[in-house]
């Protein structure tokens, strides 16, 4: 598997560290809602198909990325800096070879 880091370009997956589910929201720090915290820390869907995941380019620029990945076939649909997850327009526009359809 290769991930296209928006800063470094495409790199082998060994340079990255899986940092968990990107779909969970951290509750407000002052919140004492146990259910909200429990959901953030423990509750995880395990979808077969498209999933939003956090990956850190720990062996590269060290940025945290939101990677939209198909858990069934490892096709990566988009990569964006995690800090900019609110603005999807910053998602990597570069097409990775794995997205390009073979022309045969």
């Amino acid at each position, binding site marked *: *598997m*290769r991930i296209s880091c928006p800063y470094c370009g*495409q790199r*082998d*997956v060994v340079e990255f*560290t899986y*940092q968990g589910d*990107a779909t969970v929201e*951290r*509750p407000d*720090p*002052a*919140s*004492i*809602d*146990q259910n909200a*915290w*429990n959901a*953030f*820390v*423990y509750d995880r869907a395990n979808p077969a198909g498209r999933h939003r995941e*956090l990956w*850190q380019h*720990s062996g590269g620029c*060290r*940025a*945290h990325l939101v990677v939209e990945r198909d858990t069934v*076939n*490892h096709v990566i649909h988009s990569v964006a*800096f*995690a*800090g*900019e*997850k609110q603005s999807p327009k910053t998602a990597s526009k570069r097409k*990775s*070879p*794995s997205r*390009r*359809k*073979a*022309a*045969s």
Partner: protein
Amino acid sequence: MSGRRIADRGRIDRNRTISFSFDGKRYSGHPGDTLASALLAQGVTLFGRSFKYHRPRGVLTAGIDEPNALVTVLRGKKRDANIPATQLEIYDGLVAESQNRFPSLAFDVGAANQPAGKVFSAGFYYKTFMGPVVGPLRGTRFWMFCEWFIRRAAGLGRADHEPETARYQRMNAYCDMLVVGSGPAGLAAARAAAEQGKRVIVTELDPVAGGSAKWSGETIAGKPAAEWAAGEAEALADMDNVRLLTRTHVWGYYDGNTLAALERVGDHQPVATPGAPHQRHWVIRADTVVLATGAFERPIVFPGNDRPGVMLAGAAQRYAAEFGVLPGKRIAIFTNNDTAYAAAAELASAGATIAAIVDTRQVISAGARELAERAGGELLLGQAVSATSGGKELSGITVQQLDPVTGSASGAKRSISVDCLAMSGGWSPAIHLASQAGAAPKWNDDLQAFLPPDPAQPWLGAGAFSGDTNTADALRNGRNAGLKAAGGRASRAQVAKVEAPTLDPFPAPVFEIRTADGKGKALVDHQLDVTAEDVRLAHREGFLSVEHLKRYTTLGMATDQGKTSNVPGLAIMAEARGISIPETGTTRFRPPFAPVALGALAAERTGDVSPDRLTPMHDWHIERGAEMMPAGLWHRPRIYALPGETLEQAYVREAKTVRAGVGMVDVSTLGKIAVQGPDAAEFLDRVYTNKFSTLPVGKARYGLMLREDGLVLDDGTTWRLGETDFLMTTTTAAAGKVMQHLECLLDVHWPGLKVALTSVSDQWAGAAISGPDSRRVLERVVKGTKVDNETLPFMGIVYGEFDGAPVMICRLSFSGELAYEVYCGAGHGTHVWEALMAAGEPFGILPYGMEALGTLRIEKGHVTGAEIDGRVTARDLYLDWMLSKKKPFVGSAMMDREGLADEERIRLVGLIALDGQPLGGGAHIVEDNSRAEPNESIGHVTAFCYSPVLAKYIALALVRGGKARHGQRAFVADPLRNRYGPVEIVSHHFFDPEGSRMHG
């Protein structure tokens, strides 16, 4: 030169002779020969013994698909086993031996298994070694008892137990297009893309590019095909944007269009080039891949089809055309398709006598008929070979009429005397890589073969791989694949003109010849001795699916992975089930396409695979005779033992020195993170359980971090160097984990905070100087600052200079003594360390190692990674005083959950051994001293030592209820080390609980 060597053809260099040995006997050959071609040229027919029945075997193929002729190459004491003789290039001094024979190849006692064939049929091991239900050999124990004998009798080559002497290397490569295979299709694809300026890598598993052009005898662009291919390959190799890798096979197709290839760099060389690897593991990332891997010819399944001298027609043709060797003098052809006629013509023109061409079909094409006339010999249509004769070499074949409906041979038997039978059962495209990369392959009824699946990754196919049946199509489709891969479109332009016979491209659907008497073994998988009858037996016993068939019979397993046997095996199963081959299905190919040495994957990562992480004072420690120990990747001094001292004597001496005078330990390994920015203090307040915004500049504070789930992550001191500038220290082991935790919080959850995190662990060398004399030592060496209690109070920071090197000193204590941590630039580490040692000399200063460090901290009850094991809470460690109630922090919402706040959790205590014996890490604490039955554990030892101040063996432990048990008696139970004994549970603050010494 024996009569088998042809005078005028092939790519061998007849001007040079190479000498080598096979099974201890000397032979000669020429550069360009494989072991197989060189031995065939000298009349050798017997290459090995088969897996189960020890049947004599010759060569079946001329390439990587070889199931029979596997040999072991000896290099000194090293044994490279299971190498196909058909792939092994000879070199001067090559020593090869045959496999799976005892005591010798020609006389093999295991061949006695042959009459016992019924016994060794499919599933033999499963059925036989089930063992009795009771008794000493019950269940699988019987198998374990028999295994040694079986493993000796059955099997492939034997590995050695010597350390690897050859080097392997890894190479990372990137290209616009990777072309796998350099036959006409691959060469055309590479040329087309390379001319567009694309970066192209071409791999060829043989030493010479050209694929089928090397032996087809066709003409391309007015030149003999082999010559055309050589010219194309040379032109490609001359282009800057092309890398042509010969002796390289691509064996794995992974996600992200990453492919793995193995280059045999030194396998063909008598002496390795200095520094060069034996084999090179290529990891190639390609934007597009062109698969032009050709096709493998299939044997026909009939009784006696494994006798030495029976080989594939394409292989026979190849030996003649490419290697200048006649595989026999009097040859018969047995085929279900036209391609074998070209082989017949080539063999005849090379000097062999074609005794007969036996074809299962009643009618053949005009092109085939013309080739048959050129080849000479009888043309026997609608007939089949139903038996072979001979011992270690073929002496004749039996031909009978073939019933086109039942597929059985019957009627009058005709014997034909031959020394070689060249057979062809059609061709199977080499779709292995496409299968790895994609979905299930597609059956093609015309070609009677599986064609590649639709691409799930960006690859294109060309040539025989994608079903092209002539060279002109291969050139056109190859060229177009290259153009498309280069981002262009297919071209209508002409390709180089090919002159070749016009043949019927489609084989007859004949896979197996059955005989009326059913006698003789008809081999499907030559490598694992799986017969047609084994496949039918699997069917009768209910192993119907291809996956079950494979596992029950071992069809398609082992080193050749069924390259010649898969489709015939499927065909026989399909027939038995009365369904079609595509309905039967096929197994998905997995990497590797061909065997890969583990050494190649490990590459240079052998021995101790972790890089040594060294502190700035490393060489000083070594010179001082320190015994080093690993701490993660770091190397740290464990003890500086005097001659004759035990470990315990050494650390006790070192620890005593600290308590009585002064000692020094290298703490450069501590994780150090610069936390800077306008929001740095706010950030620290959020990540630590206690407050840091209130910390004055020039002071340090002990801090505790929790994980999101409320358990303890790490502890350490953080120093405020400026209003917006903090230096955080972490434990050595947790440095990476803490950095990642903090980066995640900033990047993902608090991107609005202006905080920068920078690893400065390596910027600073650190020396902790501890003991009542430590201040006096500092005073002797430091310039530019005072270090008295007023200037440098507990947790204070000052800056100064040691002999010209700037230092930063913080008054911290891990030992409980008056102590300081002295930091300087790492490049000044040894300088500063030596300055401290010199200043401490009048006080008898000694360096101390990890054991003494641990002893001092256990006596003080300080926690480290041994206690912070990912399962403890701050309360478990009696650190709840550090949990701020005035602010939320990471983990604050989760730390009060019922299970985490329970008083009966295992909590930190001290232990004193009451029997005066050492305690062991990991030992359990129990309330009852009975050893007979396991007692309920109420906790465990996390760290232990001999305490010089108490003159007792002590330990830190996590024990149920913690403090509530102080003063109670319990027992350690350590069955692994057979250590049982009474202990007293006490406070973990063994020594100076008020901290008067470090504040003094």
